[in-house]
């Protein structure tokens, strides 16, 4: 496609440089094969592939795998539907506190994604950059206390801006809950979703004013309170 950024094309070339066949000469590979095969019968059938010996570290979480080895199933199939493909909040222990999906993922795919990303992100040291490359996407994450806020974006999106969007979300949550902690997001997860829905729609930013978001949520909360008082019967959630 014409809009493909230059570096992505360059990247493809690097990963898989086209190998030109070695020029054939009088000493072609088959000769040494046949000579050696007299000594070493196993080589007569052609060399078997060299298997790199990979050290398996003792630590339980699997080491992050390089993106070139990751499965390609999600990559080609999914057209870009949003700047932010999904939002994920996970605890230090890998428990999911909030997920919002702006691109189509089945239930099974979602579980797989969460498991993979948890393994990738929770094992990263504190001094490393806030971006991981995963299946051709980039995942921007930042740790706030015991929670990791993660947002998955396309490879050519502005990751520094997404860091600001994450911070924007966190500050608004903080204002809403008053010094928000993980427990607030557990017991009032539905309210956290209401807040998120005032910040992002279809994976795009909707409001840059924290004051405005707070005002809108407060107005809707009072609508609910008013209706409660009126009806007197809406169950206390």
């Amino acid at each position, binding site marked *: 496609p014409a809009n493909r950024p*230059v570096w992505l094309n360059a990247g493809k070339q690097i990963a898989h440089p086209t190998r030109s066949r070695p020029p054939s000469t009088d*000493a072609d590979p088959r000769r*040494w094969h046949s000579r050696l095969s007299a000594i070493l019968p196993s080589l007569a059938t052609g060399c078997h592939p*060299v298997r*790199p010996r990979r050290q398996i570290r003792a630590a339980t979480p699997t080491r992050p795998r390089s993106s070139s080895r990751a499965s390609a199933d999600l990559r080609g199939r999914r057209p870009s539907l949003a700047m932010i493909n999904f939002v994920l909040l996970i605890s230090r222990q890998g428990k999911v506190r909030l997920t919002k999906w702006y691109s189509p993922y089945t239930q099974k795919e979602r579980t797989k994604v969460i498991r993979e990303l948890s393994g990738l992100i929770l094992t990263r040291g504190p001094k490393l950059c806030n971006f991981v490359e995963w299946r051709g996407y980039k995942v921007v994450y930042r740790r706030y206390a015991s929670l990791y806020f993660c947002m998955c974006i396309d490879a050519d999106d502005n990751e520094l801006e997404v860091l600001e969007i994450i911070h924007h979300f966190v500050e608004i949550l903080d204002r809403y809950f008053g010094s928000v902690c993980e427990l607030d997001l557990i017991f009032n997860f539905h309210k956290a979703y209401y807040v998120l829905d005032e910040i992002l729609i279809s994976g795009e930013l909707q409001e840059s004013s924290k004051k405005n978001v707070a005002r809108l949520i407060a107005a809707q909360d009072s609508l609910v309170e008013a209706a409660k008082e009126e009806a007197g019967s809406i169950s206390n959630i």
Partner: protein
Amino acid sequence: QDSVERIVEDAAMDLSLNPFSSGTRLRDMIRAIRASKTAAEERAVVRRECAAIRAAISDNDQDYRHRNMAKLMFIHMLGYPTHFGQMECLKLIAASGFPEKRIGYLGLTLLLDERQEVLMLVTNSLKQDLNHSNQFIVGLALCALGNICSAEMARDLAPEVERLLQTRDPNTKKKAALCSIRIVRKVPDLAENFMGSAASLLKEKHHGVLISVVQLCTELCKASREALEYLRKHSVEGLVRILRDVSNSSYAPEYDIAGITDPFLHIRVLRLMRTLGQGDADCSEHVNDILAQVATKTESNKNAGNAILYECVETIMGIEATSGLRVLAINILGRFLSNRDNNIRYVALNMLMKAMAVDTLAVQRHRVTILECVKDADVSIRKRALELVYLLVNDTNVKPLTKELVDYLEVSDDDFKEDLTAKICSIVEKFSQDKLWYLDQMFKVLTLTGNFVKDDVWHALIVLISNAPELQGYSVRSLYKALQASGTQESLVRVAVWCIGEYGEMLVNNISMLDVEEPITVTESDAVDALELALKRYSVDFPGDVTKLSEDTSNCCAE
């Protein structure tokens, strides 16, 4: 400390005192789940709750619908199936009160995704709610539609959303703009319907509306050539004005982030300018000055400022920029590259890859810093830097660059060794006219990380040696020495064994020595011993008669 038993006891007592009790509150269910010590306990709690919810649904219990929907969403987040609750979402959405709709729409976007057919049933409710007198209800509908609609729903409801772009309430307008983005992504044919409204909405003052509309314009340009041309004609001056105003604006507490007013608006406008200016000299000229202003004026000590500069550099490199502007961009890149913040360096490496297409020489100037990044502690940075180094290699710098990379190969992490080995082999193969240098590099790599060297790479090495008679003696002697020093890498052993087998006589008799070599003493039995040792070590992979080999090798050496 909560225990599941205690909570269940409380609930049981509650029930016995008040037979019409509704069961657990949301908070209590969450506490019970958190207090579960095993997966089985948790499953038991969830099963009990689901049973109660199912019963309430089939009884059409009105009283606790909110609580049940909230419980369903929590249970869903844990990973349990909640299909039975989908119709409840629809019922809540169809109810008349705001509280019901609020939780119903949330349930819809969490429990369903666009592929489910149940979603189609909501279309009617959505249509009604998009026409509601309560702006908040309209907002709920727009949000749900924007997050989850299918192509069919997009087509059905596009006219309503178009109309809502003209409404007076800015909060509704901004939601309508974002909803339109999704509609256009799902049904690009509809792009032309939105371009007129989008262009005129650029005159708005409300920031939320502006960021949404600017994003909509960007989307329209991607979806339709006609929209792109239209927006090029009608929106460039407006965009320049928006960016200039926000860039020059004095302190605005509502939008301030790290001393900059609304970085999000800056970034979105810059992005749209890139889309409009790409391949269009006229448009590029119009935005030249404001880009220069943003590039020079924006503070880069905080992430917000750097995010803007990043976008600015991307735009400069994407449009038909003047050379002065390009110089500005490369300078910013240079500063980013030496920033101590890992994020900034990562981003700089990305930008430099794009800059290669624009000004290779300027990027070459940063070669040393980039090489340093190959050794960075952060794997994301190492990977980016390595790709960039590969692009930078040319005839002049290939030898020093390769030396640096091979030196690093020795100490790098196992995870990285594979990538690094592959890159070094690529580079070396590309510049293999200097055969002696190529051989030296390959022997080094085989010794250090032979296990990661791909088959076709060492095949090519063997072919080159076969075709270079003047270097065969050197090769066999070097490989023999390497084998003695460390025969742990399987590929090294294979190549060495082949070489000794082919050119054993050169090894033993120091034939065709090069100036750089010192003579070594290797007897026939030394050579055979070396082979036997190597073969023994890999006897699993090389089944064969070692006696026969030693015979053959002796014969070969005697030739």
